[in-house]
């Protein structure tokens, strides 16, 4: 055995190289904060493995993908579990790469000489989001189809080349047979291949520059001295990566796999929606959770700023990521870069706030609103009863809540009579507002009267 290994190493050099790579010295006391990178990579490998398995049964054809997914979910052995693994694996990868980027930013690990570590990592973040988006589309149901159209509509906002981008997203003039195959090819071949290349570069850079030591306040990065100080630290206190630091990566990885597997078993993959038929108009397209906050951003941006946000928002986000390494010297510790902590706090806060808004989506009319029950109306005067009925039939209830029924697009009208006179109500209903249509031509005078009579009882 020994001789076989020696022979292999002589012919390939791989064993001594791996030994060298595994035992390269890393800074002492790196701790648990350093596990996110390897955990992200593990999540990616999990996606590759489960993805390949799914691809053996998935049919990337616009007309058949949906049926093949139903087969995978309902009939194939462990197909349901596998889809769950792939779904929660994707979620894990998005979360973990987010944590990894945040950690390196907070610890100033992107500074000299690790600027390109950051840059390759930033590209990996963008590719991960691209994988998440294209993957969501491969769940080729009604929501996926409308997500493609919404994505194309956003691409269409780009000045000058908008129409061309729409065609590239749809792979034609309309959604059709070519749309899915392209997303499939990007999701399973093109983007993963780029990810593998960039991960290789990223890891080669980690080996080249060493894992960053924990930042010490008052020890700024100076290009003239940093490399020497790092080498001295390694000579003095460095520990071999394997197993002194690696055991934490292994534990974290095991936790990731366990959590993903448990969620896949207990919660399971997202259910398939209606078939991908663009002529079924009862659709409520919602993105998967990782893009839900962006859905909220698009809903809450004032109309005149919208195109700017849609087009320049992603560009600015990308530019910030790419230009970050320009600030490559100075203090690393977040104690001396309090604004860095604030930036992270702010971004997390904003995303969380938008995410919660996106979860409730109060701006979406409630198409399921049922006519108000007699107990809610609570009054049997003919005009009031008629007004309550019209409140549903004329679409008011899709946007306005009464009791706890109806949409949240407009104000809750359960006690509107306490703040508006009948005349003010009639005026509002006739003229509408920025987000409420004027009903001047859609209500006869007596219908208007009936609705106002009904609303006047709401106090």
């Amino acid at each position, binding site marked *: 055995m020994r001789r076989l290994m020696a022979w292999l190493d002589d012919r390939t050099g791989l064993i001594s*190289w791996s030994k060298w790579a595994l035992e390269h010295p890393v800074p002492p006391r790196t701790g648990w904060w350093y596990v996110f990178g390897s955990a992200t990579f593990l999540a990616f490998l999990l996606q590759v493995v489960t993805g390949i398995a799914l691809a053996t049964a998935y049919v990337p054809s616009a007309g058949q993908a949906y049926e093949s997914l139903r087969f995978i979910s309902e009939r194939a052995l462990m197909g349901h579990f596998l889809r769950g693994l792939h779904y929660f694996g994707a979620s894990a990868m998005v979360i973990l790469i987010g944590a990894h980027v945040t950690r390196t930013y907070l610890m100033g690990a992107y500074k000299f000489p690790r600027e390109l570590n950051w840059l390759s990592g930033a590209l990996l973040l963008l590719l991960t989001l691209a994988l998440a988006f294209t993957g969501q589309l491969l769940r080729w149901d009604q929501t996926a189809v409308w997500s493609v*159209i919404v994505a194309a*509509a956003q691409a269409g906002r780009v000045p000058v080349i908008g129409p061309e981008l729409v065609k590239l997203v749809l792979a034609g003039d309309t959604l059709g047979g070519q749309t899915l195959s392209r997303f499939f090819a990007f999701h399973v071949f093109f983007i993963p291949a780029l990810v593998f290349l960039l991960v290789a570069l990223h890891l080669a850079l980690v080996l080249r520059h060493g894992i960053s030591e924990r930042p010490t306040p008052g020890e700024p990065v100076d290009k003239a001295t940093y490399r020497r100080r790092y080498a001295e630290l390694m000579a003095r206190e460095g520990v071999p990566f394997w197993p002194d630091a690696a055991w934490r990566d292994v534990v974290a990885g095991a936790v990731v796999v366990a959590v993903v597997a448990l969620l896949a078993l207990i919660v399971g993959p997202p259910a398939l929606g209606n*078939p991908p038929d663009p002529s079924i*108009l009862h659709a409520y397209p919602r993105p998967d959770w990782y893009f839900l906050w962006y859905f909220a951003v698009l809903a809450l941006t004032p*109309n005149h700023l919208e195109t700017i946000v849609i087009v320049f928002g992603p560009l600015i986000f990308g530019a910030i990521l790419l230009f970050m390494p320009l600030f490559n010297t100075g203090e690393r510790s977040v104690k001396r870069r309090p604004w860095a902590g604030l930036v992270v706090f702010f971004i997390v806060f904003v995303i969380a706030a938008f995410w919660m808004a996106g979860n409730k989506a109060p701006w979406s009319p409630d*198409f399921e609103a049922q006519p108000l029950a007699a107990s809610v109306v609570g009054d049997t005067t003919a005009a009031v009863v008629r007004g309550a009925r019209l409140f549903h039939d004329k679409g008011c209830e*899709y946007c306005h809540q009464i009791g706890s029924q109806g949409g949240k697009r407009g104000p809750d009208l359960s006690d509107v009579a306490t703040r508006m006179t009948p005349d003010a109500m009639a005026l509002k209903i006739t003229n509408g507002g920025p987000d409420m249509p004027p009903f001047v*031509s859609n209500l006869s005078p007596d219908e208007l009267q009936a609705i106002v009579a009904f609303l006047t009882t709401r106090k």
Partner: protein
Amino acid sequence: MDPAPPPDSPHAGPAAPPAPELLARRRFLSRVSIALSAAAAAVVGVPVVGFLLAPLFRRSPQQWRAVGAADSFKLNETVSVTFEDASPLSWSGVTARTAAWLRHDADGFTAFSVNCTHLGCPVQWLADAQLFLCPCHGGVYNSDGAVAAGPPPRPLPRYPVRVRRGQVEILTSPIPLV
């Protein structure tokens, strides 16, 4: 920390400084090699990139599609109709379908795109309220497609419509997102 080649590596460094004509020869050989590789890459790259960009150059044919007998659409009503894209690929399945809102009034027939001009979501017609309402961000349009409220920047786009031999026909068109 660079992985230096092991000491017993078969690649020993260059021995003596090479003669000038040898240097010139090397320069020539590397240029030729790079040019050859670039040419080979182009031979493969042009069709690949062209293939990926093909949707830009291909214009799908347009076709009039019948969506129903003209007298089956009541006056002053708006209903959804479905038609098939022009020359759909055989594996498109249901994705080859497109829906439109067809209105019949005193001026004849109007076919509205179902795609909200805000972000393309499918608007729904509320017959009692005479409004189109978008399920994504609450855009509202009047029965003539004009924006009544909410985020949509433009009125609902229309498809060309005609009546031929008693049939209402809609001209298939690129999805009106821009």
